[in-house]
């Protein structure tokens, strides 16, 4: 990789200020960034490390620098946000979970092999086409709901679960901090923007805000992988429902691996609200509008099945 200056800010504010310079990137543990650096897909002059940042832990907040393992073993998370616990536990490998951060997991770049193999057309990297959309492309791992012409699949385990439990993100930026629904942080694919997050330049997620609720407590995360040992999900589904007297008061169904951003199956949610939870109906509605590419048609029945299984679990 190209050499760089290495900055060690003490606070998120300092880090965000330091990231206002050109050609600089933020680093958590670096488990995704170092892959991109080694391939010279990203060549910053400065790497701003978030590891030295010490932030006070507040009630109801999980630091963006908490590790996946922290999340997977947290008793409060296990009780109040079971989908989140499962998502963290299923992720990657012990080595990655031990250091990989929540913020890094949300901000990780797409696994699309056209992006990660230099020399291929990628909208996020500034090209006009998405190589995965071609008829002859290798796109078995790509998505069913394109965004901005991009067909990649969001790789984050945590994002679907966080959105399902209505998590918010506290963000830091020199122009002013803000709190946003994590769902709104994913605003679709923008040409020339590799990151999936709608953050301002140098803006950092400092923590994730979680509020316990009947919906969040009744949440589940399911994943389908080809290889059980270490694999990004072909499809993942996080579902959460507030069910009173057998009727769905509120429900969230968020899918990973099927779109560049976590995909909220809004049509399915609408179809299920106010009724008895019917997993089959939810599954059918979730895949409505799915458009397969030349090589990933199989993802449609897989998505339907995972939605069905997730809904069956939260139906109780």
């Amino acid at each position, binding site marked *: 990789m190209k050499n760089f200056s290495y900055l060690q800010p003490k606070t998120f504010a300092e880090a965000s200020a330091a990231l206002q310079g050109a050609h600089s990137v933020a680093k958590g543990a670096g488990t995704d960034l170092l892959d991109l650096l080694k391939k010279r897909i990203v060549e910053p002059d400065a790497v701003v490390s978030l590891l030295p940042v010490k932030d006070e832990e507040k009630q109801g907040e999980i630091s963006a620098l908490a590790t996946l393992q922290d999340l997977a073993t947290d008793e409060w998370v296990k009780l109040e946000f079971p989908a989140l616990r499962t998502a963290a536990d299923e992720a990657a490998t012990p080595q990655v979970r031990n250091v990989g951060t929540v913020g890094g997991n949300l901000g990780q770049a797409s696994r699309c092999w*056209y992006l990660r193999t230099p020399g*291929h057309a990628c909208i996020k990297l500034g090209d006009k086409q998405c190589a995965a959309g071609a008829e002859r*492309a290798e796109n078995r791992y790509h998505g069913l709901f394109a965004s901005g012409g991009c067909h990649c699949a969001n790789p984050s385990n945590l994002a679907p679960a966080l959105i399902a439990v209505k998590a918010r993100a506290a963000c830091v930026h020199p122009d002013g901090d803000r709190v946003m629904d994590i769902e709104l942080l994913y605003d679709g694919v923008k040409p020339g923007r590799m990151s999936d997050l709608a953050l301002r330049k140098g803006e950092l997620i400092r923590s994730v805000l979680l509020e316990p609720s009947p919906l969040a407590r009744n949440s589940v995360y399911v994943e389908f992988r*080809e*290889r059980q040992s270490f*694999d990004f999900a072909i499809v993942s589904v996080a579902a959460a429902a507030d069910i009173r007297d057998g009727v769905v008061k509120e429900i969230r169904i968020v899918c990973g691996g099927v779109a560049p951003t976590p995909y909220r199956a809004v049509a399915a949610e609408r179809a299920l609200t106010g009724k008895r939870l019917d997993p089959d109906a939810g599954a059918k509605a979730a895949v409505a509008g799915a458009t397969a590419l030349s090589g990933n048609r*199989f993802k449609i*029945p897989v998505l339907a099945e995972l939605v069905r299984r997730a809904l069956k679990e939260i139906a109780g």
Partner: protein
Amino acid sequence: MSDKKIKLGFPGNEREIDNSFPEGAPPAWGVDAKLDVVGKDHTRLDARLKVTGKALYSYDRRFPGMLFARMLRCPHGAARVGAVNTTRASALPGVVFVEAELGKRIRYAGEAVAGIAAESEEILDDALAMIDIEYEVLPHVVTVDDSRLADAPRVGRDPNVSAYRPSGKMERVEAAHKEADVVIEREYRTQVQTHSCLETHGSVSVFKDGKLTTYGSTQGTFAFRGSLARALKMAPADVTVITEHMGGGFGSKFGADAWDIFCARVARETGRPCRAMLDRREEHMIAGMRPDSIQQCKFSVNKDGTLMGASVESWGTAGTSGRGAGVYNPGIYSFRAKAQKSWGVATNSGRGRAFRAPRHPQGVFALEGMMDELAEAIGMDPLAFRKQNDKHPVRLAQYDVGAKEIGWDRRKKSGSAAGTVKRGIGMASARWPHTGRPGSAVRCRVGKDGSVVVANGAQDIGTGTRTVLAILTAEELGLKPQQIRVEMGNTNDPPGPASGGSTTTPTLTPPTRAAAVAAKRQLLQAVADQLGGDAKKMDLKGGKVVGAAEPITFAQACAMMHGDVIETLGRGDRELFRGRDRYASEVAGVQFAEVEVDTATGGVRVIKVVGVHDCGRVVNTLTTRSQINGGIIQGVSYALFENRALDRGTGDMLNADFVSYKIAGSMDTPEIVAIPFSVANGITPSGVSSLGEPATVPTAAAIGNAVANAIGVRVRSLPITPDKVLEALGKIR
């Protein structure tokens, strides 16, 4: 002492032959041989080095002033190299050597265009990024299907498709089909698989006083030495190759490659040691692969289970050359008539290399699938069907052992299991020639101090060869394997085989024993000279000399030797490899697999695999089980996960890593029951035979058959990924 007769076979199936090995040959071991050390569990001699991190692989060799070398590689499937600007790279401080191939015609993504050597990996990385190359990108073709089209771009100078390897007579097969009750025609496909050795290819070269020492990651120290010497125009005697340990080869690492030669040239011209190791991307793209296959199979059978005709027409790519992509099909079973035609299909992709049982896993996947389909067509149990058409006595016994272990009687009618998640059981067979060959030699040195050192210049690639040599020597000398020191992997030691074809153990066994036997005789003679008595009536057992005038230990016997050391050279002479009555000139194996298929998602999990394998006489039951495990796990990986993905647009490899090129991990490993099946085969005095490759031959086929049994429909294409399962089940609209 040779006995006059040898009892061959295995318990329950024995017969006697005359011992035709020459006088003075190591004693022949029959079925009832009583052996103290051979045939038991023994821990590896080099295990301690490996578990402490002290074992030195090529990648670990470090020398003061060492340079690092890499090649710059073209990312296009086909191109011509135009202008090359290495000015900035050459000017970078720490860059010591830059060389580019101008005007080169590139025929696959990953082909080298330039080579650089620098003083650190970081400088090397920067320098590579500074080389500017203009490419004229040319049309390419990366799949067999595309390459067979009439308008496909030419890959090389010859037409893309070239016929070779015809065997048998198609007319006889067609005649058999006409007579047969049932004829089935199917297309089977297998994928390109990369070796994925954990240690990549490469070497470290050091010149001193005009002589070269190269630490190479190789399966053939002498082959490596020979190719280096030729490339550098040096005498082989001036080149030493050292491979004490290497991190996997599986057929891809024999002679020196272009980067090894470049590295050695850098070392020679700069006078500094140099290291060249591929990175993972290069390893996947250019260091070899198992060719893929498209097999058009037409098989026929009679209602009574008699196999009639079998014809296979196959296509496959071994990369840019048209050759090397055949399949082993049909084999094993007794067809009345067989015929085969193969075509090699050139593609713009990294070239194939031998990969653990070349041609067999591909061919057997199709063969065993067809066998199950034939059995189904005539309503016969697949196991009974195979037994009826397989004459091999060893395999017939193995079928029963394996069937019992997997619980074949639990197998249900295909597709009849209830529920969304269905289980199924399948089976497949393997055969492999006995590949021990003459020409090797082993040196044994017994010291006056009681030490024993055995040496051979070939390599232990992780199969446990060192320990085998120690066990064989210990058996002759009445010692424990831990008391033997074994030196391997230095070409200054006596010649040994390249580890290809599952040949190392059967080849080295006769000369190892010969060396030990000769050493024993000299030692016992020294005892007789000292104590009196007839040396021919003495032996070494349990650390002692038996039959001597006084009871003495091995160490005491050594103290009686005339000089400081008894040194013998055991030779693998031709006569030691030709048991006159070849009971079994091949090894046999069978595997049974149980799988679980989620019919809603298409996910397949292998629950259990039973592998029953004959490797002649089993020397080390512990490492033999490890080999069988390893072959099976590679087979699971081949069956379910692995696939080289080349982009048809650019010709580049999209999954040249270990994230998207998926090899089986701990969570994908089934329960494995590895059953070594020892056979006294009379081919050599010990009957030790081949194992490494047969252990991986039938696995994918057994899994394919198990999946078909589970879901009632057949996936005829590897890898058996969820999309293919769902498609077979009609769930993809």
